C-alpha cells in the first residue's frame, strides 16, 4: 500500500492538533453558544468526523441553508426534468441532482425511461459534449452558490467565444448573503455566531458578512472544511463570544482573501445578474438568484425552451424551514426517519446527502 500525504489536506486532519484545539475550546467556553454552520459541506465534515462530540456541551452546532441542492424549489426540479422530455435534448448535471425528487419523479427515473441524462464533473464537460453532438441540444443544469456559478459563467463565455449554438444552461444558481440576512433577521433566530462557507468566500471575499457583524451583532468566521479548520474557527468564535466582541474572522487564510477572487467575480458579473429566487424551506428571497444576462441569452435555457410546470406543495408536517433557520433540529420533526428518509425524502433537508437531516440520518446525532 502506498502511503503519502496529500498536501494542504492531511495537515489539516492531524489528530493531535485537532484534539488539542478541542481541549482549548472546552477550557475557554463558559456559557451556551449557538453556532450555525451555514454550509452543507461543513455539516458533512462536522458529522463525518464527529466534531460536534469534541467541542463540549456548551457549543451547539446548528446547520444552515447552505446546501444548494436542498434549497432548489421543487418547481425548478420539475422544470429541469421537463427539459429532459424534449426531443434531441441531452441533460447534463452534477451528480448531486440525479436522485433528487421533484413532485413526481427524478432524473434517475427519467434516465431509466430512456431520456438522455448524463452526470458530468464540470460544465466544461457539458460544453465538450455539445461540440461532439452538434445535432443535439445540450442543457446544463446549473446549481450551486458563488463557488460554482463562476465556473458555469466561464463555460458560457467559452461557448460565446467559440460560437457554440447547441449549449445552454438552466440557471438555478443562488447567492448567500440575502438568504443569510433573511434567516438571521427572523425573530425566531437564536444564532450567536456563524461559521461561514469557505469556498463561497474564496470567490466573494469577506466584505459581505460585515452587515451580520455590525448590524446583527453576530460573529462570522470563515472556515475551511477539514477538522483543523473547523475546530480553529469554533475556537476563534468562542474566544470572541466569551469577550462579548462580535467580529469578522478568517480561519481559512490560505485561500480566502478579504477581496476574494476578483477575476472570478468579474466573470460572474459579466454573465449573470441578480434575480429573485425561490428557496425551498425559506420562500422567495429577493435578488438571491443568478439569471443569465441578455447578452448571453442564446445560452439561457429559460429563454430557449418554453417550459411551464405547475406549482407544488410541501408535506404539511415538514419543518425544514425551521431547521434551515437553525430554530429546530432534525429529531424535532415527526417525519424524521419515519416517513422522511434518504430513500423517500419529504423536504429540503433530506433530499441531498449534505442536507441537515440527511447528515443526521447518515452519521447519527
Amino acid at each position: 500500500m502506498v502511503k503519502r500525504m496529500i498536501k494542504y489536506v492531511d495537515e489539516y486532519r492531524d489528530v493531535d492538533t485537532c484534539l488539542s484545539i478541542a481541549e482549548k475550546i472546552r477550557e475557554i467556553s463558559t456559557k451556551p453558544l449557538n453556532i450555525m454552520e451555514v454550509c452543507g459541506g461543513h455539516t458533512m465534515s462536522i458529522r463525518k468526523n464527529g466534531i460536534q462530540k469534541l467541542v463540549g456541551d456548551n457549543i451547539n452546532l446548528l446547520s444552515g441553508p447552505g446546501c444548494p441542492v436542498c434549497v432548489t424549489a421543487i418547481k425548478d426540479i420539475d422544470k429541469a426534468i421537463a427539459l429532459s422530455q424534449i426531443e434531441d435534448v441531452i441533460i447534463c448535471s452534477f451528480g448531486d441532482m440525479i436522485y433528487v425528487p421533484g413532485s413526481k419523479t427524478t432524473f434517475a427515473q427519467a434516465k431509466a425511461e430512456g431520456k438522455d441524462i448524463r452526470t458530468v464533473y464540470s460544465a466544461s464537460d457539458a460544453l465538450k459534449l455539445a461540440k461532439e453532438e452538434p445535432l443535439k441540444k445540450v442543457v446544463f443544469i446549473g446549481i450551486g452558490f458563488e463557488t460554482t456559478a463562476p465556473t458555469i459563467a466561464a463555460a458560457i463565455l467559452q461557448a460565446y467565444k467559440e460560437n457554440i449554438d447547441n449549449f445552454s444552461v438552466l440557471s438555478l444558481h443562488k447567492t448567500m448573503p440575502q438568504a443569510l440576512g433573511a434567516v438571521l433577521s427572523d425573530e425566531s433566530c437564536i444564532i450567536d455566531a456563524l461559521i461561514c462557507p469557505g469556498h463561497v468566500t474564496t470567490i466573494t471575499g469577506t466584505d459581505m458578512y460585515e452587515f451580520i457583524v455590525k448590524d446583527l451583532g453576530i460573529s462570522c468566521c470563515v472556515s475551511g472544511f477539514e477538522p483543523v479548520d473547523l475546530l480553529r474557527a469554533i475556537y476563534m468564535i468562542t474566544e470572541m463570544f466569551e469577550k462579548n466582541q462580535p467580529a469578522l474572522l478568517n480561519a481559512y487564510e490560505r485561500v480566502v482573501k478579504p477581496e476574494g477572487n476578483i477575476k472570478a467575480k468579474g466573470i460572474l458579473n459579466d454573465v449573470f445578474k441578480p434575480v429573485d429566487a425561490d428557496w425551498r424551506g425559506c420562500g422567495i428571497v429577493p435578488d438571491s438568484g443568478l439569471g443569465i444576462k441578455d447578452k448571453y441569452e442564446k445560452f439561457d435555457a429559460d429563454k430557449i425552451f418554453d417550459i411551464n410546470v405547475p406549482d407544488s406543495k410541501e408535506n404539511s408536517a415538514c419543518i425544514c424551514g425551521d431547521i434551515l433557520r437553525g430554530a429546530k433540529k432534525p429529531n424535532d420533526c415527526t417525519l424524521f426517519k419515519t416517513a422522511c428518509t434518504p430513500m423517500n425524502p419529504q423536504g429540503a433537508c433530506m433530499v441531498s446527502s449534505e442536507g441537515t437531516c440527511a447528515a443526521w440520518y447518515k452519521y447519527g446525532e
Partner: protein
Amino acid sequence: MCWSIPGKIIEINDNIAKIELAGVTKEVGLDLIDDPKVGEYLLIHAGYAIQKVDEESAKFTIDFLNGKINGKEND
C-alpha cells in the same frame, strides 16, 4: 457545499492546467486564475481552479497551531 480540493500544477497548455494530487492527475480550467505557474497549488472545484493556495499562509497556520498548542505563544 462546494467540494474543492488543492492540487499542484504540473503542466500548463493554454487555458488548461494538469494538476496532480496523490499521484492522480486531472485537467482543469484556468479561466478564473491570473498568472498561473507550474509548481503552484490551486484550489479545484467542478473542473476549474477557483483560487491559488497561499503556501506561506498555509505554512504559517500549521506552524502557529503547533507552537500555540505546545504552550509556546507565537507572536
